[in-house]
């Protein structure tokens, strides 16, 4: 288990600043997700870790060693890519064996390691198949086995699930977490999918415009967003005018209380839509004074209401963050 750290990393492409003073340290065995919209710099950070990009300034360290200028092939990192990256000319077993051959591991050890890795990703029977004979999910499992076969000090995952169907994505996401926990490999996971990041990570780094907006546990990022950007990007959010008329209050739908009694709570409004989603029902209410739509997540069955009903709302005490104007 090794730590990976970025210190003061800045990277530009022409006049575009991709990363602006990134400071991030992954503890040994930890899985950290970099979450953010397209172009926020998360993939650039991962590519700098892999050695495919050289930062303009700053230092990348692996444990005690500085690896900023070390070529990609000497970094001992495993990487899984967004698109299927298996070598089409090699079988599944040969793909997994690829990195071991580069490291000149003796054949008997290589064969046993390939078998172990394929068992780990539950594809022990498919060693002789070629990549085009596998489904997308199977290909990404093989890519994971290939990356892990070389016992990398750090595992880099570049949106490995984004090309897959929702069902396959969810299963493979859990698999990645299981394997990562089992092997205790320090892992940097890049994604734009907040559900993925919340489900899989020890910590999440939320990025915007080349900056790390917040680094914290999934609970921290969701419940205690450090900035309006984080509040808006992670989970859904209601934006209400502040009572003093300056700025806005950002509040999550589950932090808004709703009552069928129009006079019970502080804000009054009319129900415009009721969406049943299994355990939760989303109730959309147009609030009178501010003429603004607020979504409320209520436990299904906890309130009986329909479109056109008059209701009252209130923000749960201590919830919501204030955004200055």
């Amino acid at each position, binding site marked *: 288990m090794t730590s990976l750290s970025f210190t003061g990393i800045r990277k530009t492409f022409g006049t575009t600043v991709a990363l602006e003073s990134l400071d991030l340290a992954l503890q040994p065995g930890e899985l950290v997700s970099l979450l953010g919209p397209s172009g926020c710099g998360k993939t650039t950070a991962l590519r700098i870790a*892999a*050695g*495919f990009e050289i930062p303009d300034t700053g230092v990348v360290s692996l444990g005690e060693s500085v690896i900023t200028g070390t*070529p*990609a*092939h*000497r*970094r*001992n*990192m*495993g*990487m899984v*890519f967004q*698109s*299927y*990256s*298996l*070598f*089409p*000319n090699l079988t599944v077993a040969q793909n997994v064996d*690829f*990195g071991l051959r*580069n*490291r000149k591991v003796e054949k008997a050890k290589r064969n046993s390691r390939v078998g172990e890795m394929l068992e780990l990703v*539950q594809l022990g029977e498919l060693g002789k198949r070629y990549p*085009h*004979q*596998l*489904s*997308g*999910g*199977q290909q990404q*499992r093989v*890519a994971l086995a*290939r*990356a892990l076969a*070389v016992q990398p000090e750090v595992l*880099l995952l570049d949106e490995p699930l984004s090309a897959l*169907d929702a*069902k*396959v994505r969810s*299963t*493979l996401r859990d*698999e990645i977490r299981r394997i990562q926990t089992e092997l205790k490999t320090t892992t940097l996971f890049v994604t734009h999918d907040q559900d993925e990041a919340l489900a899989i990570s020890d910590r999440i780094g939320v990025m915007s415009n080349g900056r790390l907006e917040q680094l914290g546990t999934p609970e921290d990022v969701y419940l205690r967003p450090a900035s309006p950007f984080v509040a808006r990007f992670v989970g859904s959010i209601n934006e209400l005018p502040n009572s003093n008329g300056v700025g806005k209050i950002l509040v999550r739908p589950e932090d808004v209380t709703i009552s069928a009694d129009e006079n019970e709570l502080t804000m009054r409004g009319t129900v415009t839509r009721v969406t049943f989603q299994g355990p939760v029902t989303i109730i959309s209410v147009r609030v009178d004074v501010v003429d603004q739509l607020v979504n409320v997540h209520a436990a299904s069955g906890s309130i009986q209401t329909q479109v056109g009903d008059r209701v009252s709302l209130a923000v749960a005490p201590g919830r919501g963050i204030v955004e200055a104007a």
Partner: protein
Amino acid sequence: MKQSRSQRALGRLLPTLVLIASAIFFAFPLLAMARFAFQNLQVIDLGWNNLFEKWSISSVTASFSDDFFAEAFTLSLKLAVGTALFTLGLLIPTAVWVHLRLPKARVFVEFLTILPYVIPAIALVAGIVVVKPHARWFLNSDYSLIPFYVVLALPFTYRSIDTGLRAIDLKVLVEASRSLGSTWIATLFRVVIPNLRAAIISSTFLTVAVVLGEYTISDVLLKRTFPSFMAQYRQSDPRGGYALAILALLGTTLLFVAIGVLSKSRSTRPQQVSRSQENEILV
């Protein structure tokens, strides 16, 4: 508006008629050439009534026994191998580099490779004549033809390699290989080249076709290559010369058929498992 039955029939028939007309247009001169080369009859006697009479390969076997045939043919084969190796050694790293590091330069490189189309071989020859007195040490060697053939074959060979590179996810494959500990050289030999096999074979066959057909430059440099031999032999034995030309044409055609078969076998490879299938099988 509905088409009448006769219009639809004509629509189906017309392409076939055009194809047949084109085939006749190309086949008749070739047939005439074949009759001249392989039928032991006086030209004045050739007619429809003796279309199947006195066919023989004696003219071509006679050319094989010429003192210079083996020498010329061997030289052309050596030049073909040399040109193919030189071309691949030059083009694969260049095309890979352009695809990975200089994608904006792709248009410029494509323009450069198309120049031999625009500038005729005779212009190249004019250049060689100017340079010749200063580069005799190089031009005296038979193998000095190789760089010229590489240039002449560029429009075909570069496109073949470029198409092969576009068909694979080069950047990701190279980065995957590098992240697994491969040097650039190892990546080129273990990942890029094996995945360009069909493109490399096409490029090689096209190079061979160019080398076996090029006459102008070899003649100016006084090299006895197979096309030069054919041209000279035709003067002493026209039938034998044309028989050799037909054999060369047949060989080139077979090479192109082989390219077609290889391309087809690549495109008919089992397709990626579909999304719907994916949900039905183990993730």
